[in-house]
């Protein structure tokens, strides 16, 4: 038996470490651990709840908007503020734009290199690549000259030894299946996506101010004035600019991302048989279509259990708990209890080995993540969960998109419960959102026409209007999945705060009953061709879009280090 450790060195948000045992070429056991403590809850104690979003926005460098949204929603829930329609629409625009940009960046810049061999692209024939590109899309940049130029650019990087983002990977690994031309096409679009995403994210600058950390959030609404005739507000020119950016996004997603996704997936259909995971899916719902807590969402909430697509349960926030049996925390009432986040505790108690170490004691506590459970069960969250819940609920556009993709790949709905299903669902959600987001721009324009310029519920701004003691919950579907913030406000100050983030749902450790978290379950049965280059493990972990990439070192069963490779 070979023991593999995929140890995150450094990444955007935290550190993820995967330990896996491989028997007869298949993963037989896996453990997921976060090795970095995050305790925003502690820092927020005693602060003004109206400022909480400015702190939570700094939790993560890739998810700034999502923690701001969840935080202001939690506080609004506690104090009873109801944002007016313009604020809801602006938030929908900001959230959808974040999701679209994040998904494209994930596909091309964080995940594609698990499937695309950059070195193989160097032996591609540019003319044949052009033929391939033109056969899957009418995207105009598809000439032999264009692909020859890209090839020369990549070759120059390789020759100078300046691989940069391409530097740490398993080029030549037998699990890479794409022909050289498909590899070159994907690398060309890696660069095109880099150009496109930095153009598209200007949408955030338009709506959130010039600072890269959005400044326009406000408990009760938004801080950005809306006025069609004012230079200092979101106005007619803003609407024109938003329409243009969204048109560009639709073009890129429909004509580049989706064709690439389907073309690459067609070479990796075996991955529809790997990475299934826990088979339970949880969605809080997102993109409210009207005002108020019970507004219908464009992407509905719901729960699916045991891969049963014939049944959709309503989401009940009261069924969420967090356990710490295998997490480096203490609960006052005992470590095997399960606590609802509204009464959650964050008492760090590290009992793991002193770093650097070879193995974690996975029989004991082994992660800084808690184990979130819904009705006692582990749940997968994220784009796949959202697409499944929408599909089962009969969402017409989602049904069309999902059935269309399954038809093109010639696979049935059961293929969705897989690593490939996760990758596909992310792309389909991106398409869904770029098709929808324009409606919100028109809603905003319509409100301006009607003279409805309200942007903020000011009735609840003053703390004297708040209850002495109030609890609130803020739910959001972040790009990576269901995100919840819970706040307890007492005498105008934060008395308690808990965040349950998507990567905790997906990457959390085993619970008190020994049930694996989604990453741990998804890795079971994953084939590993070469334990020194565990590319296949990364494919499944990356399919969840963890907010961190990893460095890998591989040890044999005695804990002796065989190789150390940093990967993304």
């Amino acid at each position, binding site marked *: 038996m070979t023991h593999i450790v995929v140890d995150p060195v450094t990444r*955007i948000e935290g550190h993820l470490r995967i330990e896996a045992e491989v028997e007869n070429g298949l993963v037989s056991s896996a453990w997921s651990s976060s090795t970095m403590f*995050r305790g925003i809850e502690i820092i927020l104690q005693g602060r003004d709840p109206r*400022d909480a979003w400015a702190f939570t926005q*700094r939790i993560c*460098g890739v998810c700034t908007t999502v923690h701001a949204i969840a935080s202001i929603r939690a506080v609004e829930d506690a104090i009873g503020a109801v944002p007016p329609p313009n604020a809801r629409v602006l938030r929908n625009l900001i959230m959808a734009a974040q999701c679209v940009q994040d998904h494209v960046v994930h596909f091309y810049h964080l995940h594609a290199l698990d499937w695309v061999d950059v070195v193989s692209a160097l032996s591609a024939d540019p003319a044949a690549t052009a033929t391939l590109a033109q056969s899957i899309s009418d995207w105009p940049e598809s000439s032999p000259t264009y692909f020859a130029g890209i090839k020369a650019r990549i070759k120059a990087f390789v020759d100078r030894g300046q691989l*940069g*983002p391409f530097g740490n990977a398993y080029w030549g690994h037998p699990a890479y299946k794409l022909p050289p031309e498909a590899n070159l096409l994907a690398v060309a679009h890696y660069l095109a996506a880099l150009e496109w995403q*930095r153009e598209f994210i200007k949408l955030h600058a338009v709506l959130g101010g010039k600072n*890269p*950390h959005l400044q326009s959030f406000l408990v009760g609404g938004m801080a950005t004035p809306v006025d069609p005739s004012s230079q200092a507000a979101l106005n007619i020119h803003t609407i024109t600019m938003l329409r243009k950016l969204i048109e560009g996004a639709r073009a890129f997603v429909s004509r580049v991302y989706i064709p690439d996704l389907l073309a690459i997936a067609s070479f990796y259909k075996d991955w529809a048989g790997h990475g299934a995971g826990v088979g339970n899916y949880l969605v809080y719902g997102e993109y409210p279509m009207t005002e108020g807590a019970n507004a219908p969402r464009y992407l509905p909430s719901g729960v699916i259990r045991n891969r049963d697509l014939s049944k959709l349960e309503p989401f009940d926030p009261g069924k969420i708990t967090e356990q710490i049996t295998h997490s480096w925390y203490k609960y006052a009432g005992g470590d095997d209890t399960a606590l609802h986040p509204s009464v959650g505790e964050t008492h760090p108690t590290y009992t793991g080995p002193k770093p650097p170490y070879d193995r974690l004691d996975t029989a004991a506590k082994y992660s800084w993540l808690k184990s979130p459970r819904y009705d006692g069960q582990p749940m997968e969250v994220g784009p796949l969960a959202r697409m499944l819940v929408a599909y089962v609920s009969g969402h017409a556009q989602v049904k069309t998109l999902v059935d269309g993709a399954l038809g093109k790949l010639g696979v049935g709905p059961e293929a969705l419960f897989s690593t490939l299903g996760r990758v596909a669902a992310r792309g389909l959600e991106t398409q869904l959102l770029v098709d929808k987001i324009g409606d919100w721009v028109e809603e905003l324009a319509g409100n301006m026409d009607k003279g409805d310029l309200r942007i903020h519920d000011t009735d609840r701004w003053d703390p004297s209007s708040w209850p002495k003691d109030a609890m609130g919950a803020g739910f959001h579907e972040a790009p990576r999945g269901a995100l919840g913030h819970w706040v307890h406000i007492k005498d105008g100050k934060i008395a308690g705060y808990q965040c349950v983030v998507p990567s905790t749902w997906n990457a959390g450790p085993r619970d008190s009953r020994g049930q694996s978290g989604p990453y741990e379950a998804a890795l079971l049965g994953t084939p590993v061709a070469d334990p020194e280059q565990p590319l296949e493990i990364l494919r499944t972990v990356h399919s969840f879009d963890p907010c961190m990439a990893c460095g890998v070192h591989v040890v044999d069963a005695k804990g002796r280090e065989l190789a150390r490779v940093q990967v993304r």
Partner: protein
Amino acid sequence: MREPTRSEPANDRIPLLVLGLGNVLCTDDGAGVVALHRLRRAWAMAEGVVTVDGGTLGLALLPMVERAERVLMIDAVRGDGPPGTPVRITGDDVAPAVYERLSPHQIGVADLLGGAAMLGRYPSAVVIVGVVPASVDLGFERTPAVEASLPGLVTRVVAELTAMGFPPTPLVAGALQERNLDDAARALGF
């Protein structure tokens, strides 16, 4: 919309981009961001200088970096010497440094510079100035040694700006340059 926090040249190029980097929730990791905000409060930037609180953002900063002729990054940098020791990195040392010596919380900076290089828009000069951190554990305050080093860090940034031909002008002592303070920074109390 809010008043821009910088004066941009007409041709959309940024002659000098100053980036404060790091996670302000992780004690000394936030040293660069705090130094940036203190710089803004005490000094008026010369024409052509854009100052940005980059936090732990990665590719989201690409629209600025690719327009920048020079980039000055302020950050906590692992290095020899006790906490608070000044560090300066330039030229060929920058690329390995962003992979190995910046804090774990901002590997996005490597993606950022890699992306600019891939697009053929790597700035002509990149300089990192910073201090050696004592701790990057959770915590909103800087450790005493690093806190004590921050005035020196701001002074070094001013010297770098001056050496690059963009000398800033001191603001009247104690006068907050409100327009340069964003809401979040105000809430965070830098």
